[in-house]
């Protein structure tokens, strides 16, 4: 029988070999770029959006909020590359600052919504039985509402504005992620290592968070990346309806809302914010697809 020191030495060796064989972050990144050309385009768009959002004040010298009535509704020219809106604000600048709103709402709503869904889904699968059944029925109820209807209902309670829009988008995402995560957690619950953890007398919370959650990371990440684009689109829709982000905060959907009145005379205010939304959602979606293919080859055909 090996002594404890022998065992730990062996463990250390295995770990070292493990480390040696694991590809470096850089090389797996390069592999991702080579294997997923479309996903790389998505990654590039996402990265571009992050850079623009982060450095908006350095990229543009205009103020995105302040009105300037001497330059109202100017067509695109050298000074205003994409023209100005009805308050004389530079459209390009507002699109750049709008990326901040879109990223903030999209990332925060998708992360919180998916994470709550993750924990709920795993817990439901872990406890099983009646708890699982009741939980499933509750999720059914939430899933019976189209995304935008539920989001509108939440907005009407808490009011408009960035924080409430995030809340309104987070809530409908929870059941969608919970359902997907639950189905893979059901298989994990039957694994011997969960029995072992239970036999060790670990608490339910510990088993759920330390043993089950890490093993459903693949479906979770897939849901997460898929949700960001959807969240951005939903935010734009809410703002377009006037029930999302409010003036003067720069937001793409809101810009399109105002642009409706000027379609005939100033088409530029109606075109470019839409291009920004489409590009952003497109980027996140194809990046998400690539992440899905990389994490779970079985889902590729979908």
């Amino acid at each position, binding site marked *: 029988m090996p002594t404890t020191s022998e065992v730990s030495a062996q463990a250390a060796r295995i770990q070292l070999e493990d480390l040696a064989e694991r590809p470096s972050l850089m090389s797996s990144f390069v592999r991702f770029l080579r294997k997923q050309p479309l996903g790389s385009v998505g990654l590039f768009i996402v990265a571009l959006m992050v850079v623009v959002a982060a450095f908006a004040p350095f990229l543009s010298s205009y103020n995105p909020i302040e009105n300037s009535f001497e330059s109202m509704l100017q067509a695109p020219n050298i000074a205003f590359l994409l023209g100005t809106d009805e308050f004389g604000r530079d459209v390009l600048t507002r699109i750049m600052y709008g990326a901040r709103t879109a990223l903030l709402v999209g990332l925060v709503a998708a992360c919180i919504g998916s994470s709550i869904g993750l924990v709920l889904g795993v817990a439901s699968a872990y406890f099983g039985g009646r708890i699982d059944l009741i939980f499933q029925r509750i999720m059914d109820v939430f899933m019976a509402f189209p995304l935008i209807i539920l989001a509108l209902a939440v907005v*009407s309670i808490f009011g408009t504005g960035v924080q409430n829009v995030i809340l309104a988008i987070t809530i409908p995402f929870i059941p969608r992620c919970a359902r997907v995560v639950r189905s893979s957690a059901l298989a994990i619950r039957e694994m011997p290592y969960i029995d072992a953890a239970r036999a060790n007398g670990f608490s339910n919370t510990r088993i759920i968070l330390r043993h089950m959650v890490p093993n459903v990371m693949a479906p979770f990440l897939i849901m997460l990346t898929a949700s960001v*684009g959807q969240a951005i689109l939903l935010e734009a829709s809410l703002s*377009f309806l006037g029930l999302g982000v409010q003036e003067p905060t720069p937001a793409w959907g809101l810009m399109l809302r105002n642009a409706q009145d000027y379609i*005939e005379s100033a088409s530029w205010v109606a075109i470019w914010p839409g291009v920004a939304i489409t590009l952003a959602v497109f980027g996140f979606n194809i990046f998400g697809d690539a992440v899905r293919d990389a994490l779970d080859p079985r889902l590729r055909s979908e």
Partner: protein
Amino acid sequence: MWQYVIKRLLLMIPTLIGAAILVFFLLRAIPGDVCEIKLAGTGLYVDQAQIDICRKDLGLSQPLYKQFADFIVGLATFDYGKSMWTGRPILQEIGLRFELSLQVAIMATITSILIAIPLGTLSAVYQNTWIDYIVRTFSIAGIAMPSFWLGILIILGLLTFTQHWFGAPWMPPIEYRSLWTDPWHNISQLIWPALATGYRYSAVATRMTRSSLLEVLREDYVRTARAKGLIEKVIIRRHALSNALLPVVTVIGIEFAFLMGGLVVTEQVFNLNGLGRLFVDSVTNQDFSMTQYLVMLVVMIFVLSNFVVDIMYAWLDPRIRFS
């Protein structure tokens, strides 16, 4: 089969009751109510007594459990009562707009089928060629593009096109006329929103057609069909597509329900007075009675179309009913 149908029917009941509870209490959690908005709109000085009278008239001062009971009884007996905002019967208000929204939804579904099945088939048959790439980009773009922006672009395109070719800008008519009284007017108004939503919804169905056809094309019986010398066209149309379209039917069915929600935004762009517009208005005015029945209508359509899809699925694929 009947056992399965009844089981699925019974499963709908808790979902609907749960949705009714959720909607009812969500709405009551909103600070303020329709009376405050209504009276503030008059611009006159409003005292608490007037608000109380208004609340009493609308039944808002009754205890919650009683309001809830009324709501459920109303739902079950199709006696929806009156709108708190306009005072007109809710069924009448919904009826006025239902035809329009339903027509747009049906036309959008037809559009999405007409786009999805040919394109999805093309993309599967010519997998990994430039045709495939173009179709896939086209459909990914459809998901990424907000339908309200597509709507704006369509209007913009119409304006520029008619201005250029006919010398005068033309916009789709704003006033709604029924398909039966004035079909030309009706179609020229509703075809654009149907195109905008239909393109967006075709994206998922296109991908579904492609992946499902790809799977079927690898099956043994397709190889047999090829081996006995059938023309590729016949193999795809007769043998492969009929089996591959099953999941596509599901997707289209589920989407039909989502269309009702998606119309909320599109109707706004095209200035259509449909259910979506009614919904946004009633949310803005905190017209509880209208909002709760509208939401329940959407939920019921959604749950019902899921039900129909499940039944169709089980009918087409016996493995499902017996599992």
